[in-house]
């Protein structure tokens, strides 16, 4: 079942269109930086973007910083929202269920497929932006990359920290995927489910900017997304990364269970 869902995702032109968009934005950024040589001032703009002019090996991280706040979660919302509601719209849901495919089984396969998409998207973005960084932007200093704390990271250090950061970004999308899947079982419309999820993301972002909502901040879906930056401090600042993991796992558990509870007993009468 999961294999079939993966094949369906890979063979869908839309998957590649979305990945293309995810790659296009950092590419545009890389070209603009290379042409103008104008980085944001240190401490402003997306993380790492000011550093990449002098050190192109950091560009994969800068690229993730560029797509993470908006583009990637929207892509996940669209795919996750489509998971059940999309099958319902084409009418194929009922034929899957009478095949028979167990409802829980289908839900898990859909969730795993969205995760696989995130993995694929993040890897493609990282690979392409790595190449762009090497070709278009500054060469790494011979002494090694300078960490955010000012110390020097060896090439090896940088590699595993980057891998860790990629993993963290993927986990950050789990919460979004679960919320989208839940809305997807709720709504008969894939667009409706995606919009609902994007609504949650926007609400989370708005509340993050609001001091009056400070008590809620640690529980917000988007709160710790950019904590992967902390992996490049020396020593690594684990606090927010760990909190981020806990929040994502919390969202994943709650919304997957809600999706399961709703879908398990739902009348399929599309």
């Amino acid at each position, binding site marked *: 079942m999961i294999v079939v869902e993966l094949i369906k995702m890979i063979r869908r032109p839309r998957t590649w269109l979305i990945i293309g968009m995810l790659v296009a934005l950092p590419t545009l950024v890389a070209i603009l930086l290379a042409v103008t040589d104008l980085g944001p001032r240190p401490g402003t703009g997306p993380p790492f973007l000011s550093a990449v002019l002098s050190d192109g090996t950091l560009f994969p991280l800068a690229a993730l910083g560029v797509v993470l706040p908006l583009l990637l979660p929207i892509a996940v919302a669209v795919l996750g929202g489509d998971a059940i509601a999309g099958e319902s719209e084409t009418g194929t849901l009922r034929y899957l269920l*009478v095949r028979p495919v167990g409802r829980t089984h289908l839900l898990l396969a859909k969730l795993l497929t969205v995760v696989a998409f995130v993995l694929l998207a993040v890897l493609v973005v990282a690979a392409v932006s790595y190449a762009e960084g090497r070709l278009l932007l500054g060469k790494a200093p011979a002494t090694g990359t300078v960490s955010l704390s000012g110390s020097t990271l060896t090439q090896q250090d940088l590699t595993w920290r980057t891998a860790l950061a990629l993993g963290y970004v993927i986990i950050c999308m789990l919460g979004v995927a679960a919320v989208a899947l839940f809305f997807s079982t709720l709504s008969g419309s894939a667009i409706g489910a995606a919009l609902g999820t994007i609504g949650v993301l926007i609400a989370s972002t708005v509340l993050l900017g609001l001091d009056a909502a400070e008590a809620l901040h640690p529980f917000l879906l988007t709160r710790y997304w950019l904590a992967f930056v902390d992996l490049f401090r020396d020593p690594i600042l684990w606090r927010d990364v760990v909190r981020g993991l806990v929040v994502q796992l919390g969202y994943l558990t709650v919304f997957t269970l809600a999706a399961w509870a709703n879908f398990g007993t739902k009348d*399929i*009468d599309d």
Partner: protein
Amino acid sequence: MNTAAENGHVIQTRALTKRYGELRAVDGVNLEVRAGDVYGFLGANGSGKTTTVRMLLGLVLPTSGEAKVLGQPMPTARRQVLPQVGSLVESPAAYPHLSGSSNLALLDATGSDRSPRSERRAKIRDALDQVGLDPADRRPVRTYSQGMRQRLGLAAALMRRPTLLILDEPSNGLDPQGIQEIRRLLLQLNAEGTTIFLSSHLLAEVEHMCTHVGVLRDGRLILQERLDALLRPTGLVAVRTPDIDRCSELLGAVVDSVGDDRLLVRADDPADLNAYLVGEGVRVDEIGPYRRSLEEIVLEAETRA
């Protein structure tokens, strides 16, 4: 399967009911479909046919009552039951960007009873052949006509050679020739032992194919009977004549009912009756044994209900 074989029931529901709020979409339905039947499930649009079909397939959960398919309770036993059931629910559906055979391959691969790769291709080819689609056609389903989509839906239902076919409006979107082809195919499958439960709003379709008829109206099963029993001779003779008054006067007590230009008469032999009427100088346009059409029977049942 064993229990189904014991009492011969392939589908059996008891007081099957589905309520949506106040609306009783399906209301205390007791269906009985036996092995080898071609069961025509009739009813106007919105009478609850599709909801009943969906309950049989475990897509919609009944509010109360029970449904057994192949002798096992649905939806509890769907994992055992559904692999032996082929179905077309409301309308066919396929992924529009993939070809017909890719769609069938994906559908086959999703089940735990998927066929080995080598067999899958042959199965798909056979199923597409059966319904009159070209297995070599690589065009995406997006480009299919409605008739082709319907055929693809049927191919999907037939692919696993089910013992029971549950088909909701199988001739939707087909041209008259297509309807004939599919009807022939279904009757052939039935002759080979497949039980067919066919829901339709087309009386003619049911009259042509079915051995049994069930009629649903406003969620209630108002008629369930063997078709040949319903259509058996009535012992009445229909007489069409312009001299309707004189004729009914002549025949007196044996007249069953009088219409605008037609009398129904209790008589054993139309030829004798004809000779008598003509001898009395009554002009007869048409005379013959009276059989009720399915349409009349259904209308009568609906008026009673």
